[in-house]
């Protein structure tokens, strides 16, 4: 019997991070989990609004959760860190501020239903850790990733503020724990919660390039071959901005950036063409081939 979980993709999972969605679904299928995509999902809000008196920024995330509830769902799984953060925080906000929830419900009158804060927002990593369980993940490993040194990078959105953190805020380990199960070697990355530069990537690419240099250079010094992440924005910044990092820092070396699900799917024995390596700016295939993993 497969478990069906309402799934909220968000915009990037349908565009630049399509390979993240695809591989996540492959991984889930191994555990009989089916992502049931919401019929009418809209923007997550993109950035969590910090304004205390303007609830307009929270209408979009709350509307998504209301639609989960309307469809009979009690929870939703999210892949994108930004979506996770925005949805989860909006959810906490309306749970704590009933008066604001009333206002938002009034704005959403066309939905013909009211939201009550009941939907549980979960990141896929939480489901892997807490529901699937590490022992079951280990059982699915067909091709152990021997000889691959992996650094895990979290960024901020899965961890901050601490009320929404999926793991220890300062020293998260969930991705490292999974990497170990896959047979790869974990490299400690002291900068795993440093900022990737976020949306500065639009207007000030140099900032991102310097952050990328700091994070990837540290990973390199610690002995990493590849770096994994769960955030499409971090992925974009760390992958796509490596060319400017190279321009600005002559000692910089390119490093492939993977979604953790790509690495899992690889270890679970899925074929290369299903892993979505083509869109990567820094092609991960040479590094993987070198270690006999492709």
């Amino acid at each position, binding site marked *: 019997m497969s478990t069906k979980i309402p799934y909220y993709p968000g915009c990037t999972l349908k565009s630049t991070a399509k390979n993240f969605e695809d591989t996540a679904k492959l991984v889930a299928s191994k555990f009989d989990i089916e992502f049931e995509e919401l019929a009418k999902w809209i923007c997550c809000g993109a950035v969590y609004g910090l304004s205390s008196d303007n609830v307009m920024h929270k209408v979009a995330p709350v509307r998504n959760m209301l639609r989960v509830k309307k469809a009979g769902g009690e929870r939703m799984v999210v892949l994108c860190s930004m979506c996770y953060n925005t949805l989860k925080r909006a959810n906490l906000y309306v749970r704590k501020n009933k008066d604001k929830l009333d206002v938002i419900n009034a704005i959403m009158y066309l939905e013909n239903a009211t939201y009550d804060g009941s939907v549980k927002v979960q990141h896929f990593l939480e489901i892997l850790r807490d529901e699937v369980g590490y022992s079951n993940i280990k059982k699915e490993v067909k091709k152990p990733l021997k000889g691959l040194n992996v650094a895990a990078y979290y960024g901020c959105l899965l961890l901050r503020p601490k009320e929404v953190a999926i793991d220890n805020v*300062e020293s998260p380990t969930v991705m490292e724990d999974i990497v170990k199960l896959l047979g790869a070697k974990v490299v400690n990355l*002291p*900068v795993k919660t440093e900022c990737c530069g976020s949306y500065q990537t639009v207007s000030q690419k140099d900032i991102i390039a310097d952050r990328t240099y700091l994070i990837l250079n540290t990973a390199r010094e*610690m002995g990493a071959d590849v770096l994994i992440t769960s955030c499409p924005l971090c992925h974009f910044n760390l992958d796509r901005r490596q060319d400017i990092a190279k321009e600005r820092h002559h000692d910089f070396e390119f490093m492939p950036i993977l979604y953790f699900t790509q690495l899992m799917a690889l270890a679970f024995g899925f074929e290369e063409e299903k892993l979505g390596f083509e869109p990567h700016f820094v092609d991960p295939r040479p590094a993987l081939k070198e270690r006999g993993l492709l």
Partner: protein
Amino acid sequence: MAEKPRIGVFVCHCGLNIAGVVDVKRVAEEAKKLDGVVFSTTYVFMCSEPGQKVVENAIKEHKLNGVVIANCSPSLHEKTFRNAAARAGLNPYRVEIANIREQVSWPHEHEPEIATRKAIAVVRATVERVKNNMTYIPYEVPVTKAVLIIGGGIAGIQAALDVADAGYEVYLVEKSPTIGGKMLFLSETFPTLDCPQCIETPKMTDVSQHPNIHLMTYSEVESVEGYLGNFNVKIKRKASYVDFDKCTGCTDCLRVCPVKAPNEFDRGLTKRGAIYMANEQAVPLVAVVDEKYCIEVNFQKRVKAGKVKPREKPVCSKCVEVCEADAINLLESNEKIVEVKVGAIIVATGFELMDMKKLPEYGGGEVPDVIDALAFERLLAPSGPTAGVPKRPSDGKIPKSVVFVSCAGSRDPEHGVAYCSRVCCMYLAKQAMLYKHAVPDGRAYNFYIDIRSNGKGYEEFVQRVREEGDLIYLRGKVSKIFRKGDKVVVWGADTLTGQKVEIETDLVVLATAMVPPPEIKKLAAKLRIPTDEYGWLSEAHLKLRPLETVTAGIFIAGAAQFPKDITDTVSQASGAAAKVLTMFSQPKLKREPIVAEVDTEICAGCGLCKEQCAYDAIRIDEKKNISVVNEALCEGCGACAAVCPSGAMRLRNLTKKQVIEMIEVLTENY
């Protein structure tokens, strides 16, 4: 009040504290119009001597039988004016306070008209209350002239010596095998650079030799019953498997024990056996067996539990074999409960350091060369594991550079510690100086937020060591610490230059926050004394009663109340001892009569009040099926009266009738 009420109202200006907002003259005029009020006036400082005279004279002149003082919180001056009334011949319990400062002028600073109207209302309500106040006489309880002191650190030691020297018996209970506390860990003490061996161990010896002090180490308080002047205390002497009377402290047993356990005295930097002595200066100088680690003791426990069969020969009896004094018996636990009677209790349970694991951003518990400051004290101590020349835990090398991190956890609400730990700035300066003495070519960096050196000789000390010691002080917080090869990398900021700082160093010392010991909550519950949001013991009044708890007869000293240095701890310990001696100087103790009482005609013995009582002052008389209040235990909080469904339980001078009349006055315009 059976006679006709003749009430006086005295409105205090409190300088401008009240009069700057509230129109005090108008309050007094309005008060005079009230039924039963025969006199009212204002005065600039009612609590001053001439102010009290105003009250006394008015009582005599106008034959007052009730007094309302409109001023500050009753916790500040209720006693002052009750004493004044007594001097003028009025029963002190006919005096009540109308708080128009903390509850009126301060919160309504910017709305004088509202404040004045509220002050009038509060005064009117209090007048209604006083009309029904009764005359009560304090009653007396006998006092057992012995004191229990919990905690044998420098606070407990000082208090014990002071009380014992005055000729009274002291029971000094310490949970670890030696007295001396955290001070004994230290290399040297700021700002005088005395070593604890020079200034603390003589006091420890005095304790052990004092005829009035019963020293109970390796012991814990099991239960406390009774009340002010008459506490019955059960003390558990933990199983040590060593007869302290026989043990000579020869250390033969320590050498043969095959077990390796972390040595608490060296913060786990070294190992000790299962049988061990706390340290070389331990008082009493005896060995104890740590149940958790001893092979034989654990075997015997499993035998008793029926998990394994008994053996003819012991599994391990090395210590027993070498003990010439025949002091060790591993086969039988020597745990026992001792009962003592005392009249007062001083709690001096000290502090712990925040677990470094709570600071993963600083590599706490992960990086071996990130240590806390007490561990570094041991590395600097001549009697420590490295004989005073620090060597780092990972590889035993002498660190050529050390980064000291202030406020590691302190002043950081995100880590649950919003307060300043108060001693770190000072000891880090001292540690950096001692490090430079031991390793002259080493570099010492100190990250700080502010330097807090507010004690006698403190600022001079910090300035001197900074200049003479060639120390690098960097004003800014450290953001991250991690291991890189055999180095430790520290990321921080220097806010004076506005630069980011990255230092590759050999060793990092974290000034972790001082936090209450984890067991304190349980102990506080046994003693029925409150703790604050962090777990520090709460004083009765932060400014005016800092040594007392709200439970009469129980006092606090040292860091159990809040982080303190040795100077403050010793002062407070002597202060707490003086409080106890004041108690003991009286043949009988006076108790406040404003306590709960039961109307036995109404009480149905439902027991709701008993459940509410935080002081265990209520019992149910099964025969008569009514509640009975132990007046000596009752602190007059009123919780029982509030919960009583029938109104049988009432608080003297704050009866239901009085409360309802006050509410009626306050709400008549609504």
